[in-house]
């Protein structure tokens, strides 16, 4: 990231704040986790924050995103309510889904964060369907759909690309390629690495980003979003990134034999939270850090103080009126 800042100071501060908020929130979740207060499988995005942040930074408030069970980053980057997210992880009635979602199915329709899903690939067509409706609405709103490398193997991914391109849906597809599905490397799952080339055969512009540089992602997403608003139909970005923690849970897993700490260290050397932080002057950075800590402390407090849902809530929301 070479020292010279590629964006205006406000953007830099905003991007850093978002990265920092996600990183620190998840670190806090990992810290709390052994207490068993969070009885939810947590799939941490630590190390992958820049994809969500880079993309969401170019979206408008009324644009829509969808993501996966590894969704804390996208939820927060899009402006999802932190208190309600934390309460949801705690299983409290004040959670964003009233305790029915846990970490894997976060939602905040107020911030235009569509519900996430624990079944890989399922949110991709749903986001496209939402984009279909946005297209009909005609107000220039777009959708962005985040998913992992593994999700691209599901048939529904190909089906959705075809339909989205055929109908020129206003959607940005974002593949967070962290090289693994649980512990399975892409080499066990992909016949080739030519994903972007394949996407292009559907008539969808596709950009492959070699690493997780937040400003490069932001720039690519900005171009893509602009094209979509201009009527291009879907656009695609593949971001190479890296999951620092284990697949699910708060810990690390470099002793389990499926990957090495060297691999991690190469990515850590270019940690986007640290790198963007280093571009800020110390006081500004400190102010942001303090604000972030305050927000997280408040959210944890909110979650801890919130009541459990009442038992009869089990039966609410089975059917909508």
């Amino acid at each position, binding site marked *: 990231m070479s020292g010279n800042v590629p964006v205006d100071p406000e953007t830099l501060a905003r991007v850093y704040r978002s990265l920092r908020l996600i990183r620190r929130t998840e670190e806090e979740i990992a810290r709390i986790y052994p207490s068993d207060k969070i009885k939810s499988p947590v799939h941490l995005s630590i190390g992958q924050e820049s994809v969500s942040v880079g993309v969401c930074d170019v979206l408008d408030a009324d644009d829509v995103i969808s993501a996966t069970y590894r969704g804390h980053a996208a939820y927060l980057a899009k402006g999802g309510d932190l208190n309600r997210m934390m309460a949801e992880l705690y299983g409290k009635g004040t*959670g*964003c*889904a*009233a*305790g*029915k*979602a846990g970490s894997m*199915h976060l*939602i*905040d*329709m107020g911030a235009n964060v*569509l*519900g996430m*899903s624990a*079944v890989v690939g*399922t949110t*991709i*067509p*749903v*986001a*496209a*369907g*939402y*984009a*279909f*409706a*946005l297209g*009909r*609405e005609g107000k220039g709103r777009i959708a962005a759909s985040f998913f992992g490398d593994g999700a691209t193997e599901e*048939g*529904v991914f190909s*089906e*959705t690309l*075809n*339909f989205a391109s*055929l109908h020129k849906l206003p959607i940005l597809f974002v593949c967070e390629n962290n090289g693994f599905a649980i512990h399975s490397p892409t080499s066990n799952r992909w016949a080739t690495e030519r994903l972007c080339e394949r996407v292009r055969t559907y008539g969808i512009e596709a950009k492959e980003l070699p690493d997780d540089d937040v400003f490069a992602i932001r720039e690519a997403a900005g171009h893509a979003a602009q094209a979509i608003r201009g009527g291009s139909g879907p656009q695609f970005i593949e971001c190479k990134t890296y999951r620092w923690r284990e697949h699910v849970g708060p810990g690390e897993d470099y002793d389990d034999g499926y990957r090495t700490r060297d691999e991690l260290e190469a990515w850590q050397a270019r940690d986007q939270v640290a790198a963007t932080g280093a571009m800020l002057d110390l006081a500004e950075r400190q102010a942001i850090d303090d604000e972030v800590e305050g927000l997280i402390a408040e959210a944890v407090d909110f979650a801890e103080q919130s009541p459990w849902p009442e038992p009869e809530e089990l039966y*609410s*929301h*089975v*059917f*909508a*009126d």
Partner: protein
Amino acid sequence: MSSPTDSSKTGKGRVISYVEALQEAVSQEMDRDQGVFVIGLNVDDHKAIQGTTHGLIDKFGPGRVIDTPLSEDAITGIAIGAAMAGMRPIHVHIRMDFLLLCMNQLINMGAKAHYMYGGQVKVPLVMRSIIGKSWGQGAQHSQGLHAMFMHVPGLKVVAPTNAHDAKGCLIAAIRDNNPVVFVEHRILYSTDAPVPEDPYTVDFGKARVVGDGDDITLVGISYMLVECLRARKLLAEAGISAAVIDPVSLLPLDVDTIARSVEQTERLLVVDNAWVTCGAGAEIVAAVCERRQGASPLAVGRMGYAPTTCPTTPALEKGFYPNAATIASKAHSMVRPGEPEWAPAAEPTLAHEAVFRGPF
């Protein structure tokens, strides 16, 4: 509640077919609400899903009557997403068997979204699906899979058996804020009934007593209602009086109406247009038994598809489905268990053969 097939009671003169009723329901709802749209393979062609989407493409254009690729799972997801955004998709499947391609979206997302997201979204989605029969439909074009959908909380399931209920249930399904699996039967398509022109809804969760009787209660699901009504006539000739009930809606299910009839008859025979094991008949029998808690002796029976895959040859297929004669025979054995088996002559032409000829 009166039988809608009895025009003297409804007092409505206009008689149209099941196909026309479906078409009219959708057309009227599309007029009423810009958010309603039809999506599915071939919904826009000249065959128009056997006429049920006839003229919609001309009236509403390709923006609201959308032909699709063969991509059932993605299209279901897309319909769910559009529904979450406030639209009202009607996703059409020319055979119910094809719902097996979109179980993931329908069950893991559609059925669960409202609950799993704490009420933040609704999924007003209609899945129209047609059960096929005969003329070599065979293994993969004949399945009635409604029990699978009844099993999953969050889905509603309706299976109207006449044109009147087809229109009213479809309008109700479109207006419902939940995913509704709408079960049609190909053989019912040509049947007529008095159908009001103005839009109306048929409420879910209300069964119809379509024939009174004291000796046994027959519950007929989907097309099997027709065979039950014919069985009732055969039974009358043998001096047995059978009540016949059309559940109309399978989930919610009106157990009250069935239990009330059983209170009188003390015999319950459910005839389903589907396999029996873990089927709608199992549910109805179990639910009625649970309610009664052995208050008095109760004879129960279930009929449905043979416990086999559906064969194509007519020589075997006729044993695969219950019909008026086999239903009457079974009912007779329940009402008069001591007597020798009674097998009324099967009608020379089965009901569906009179109205249906290939190719399909």
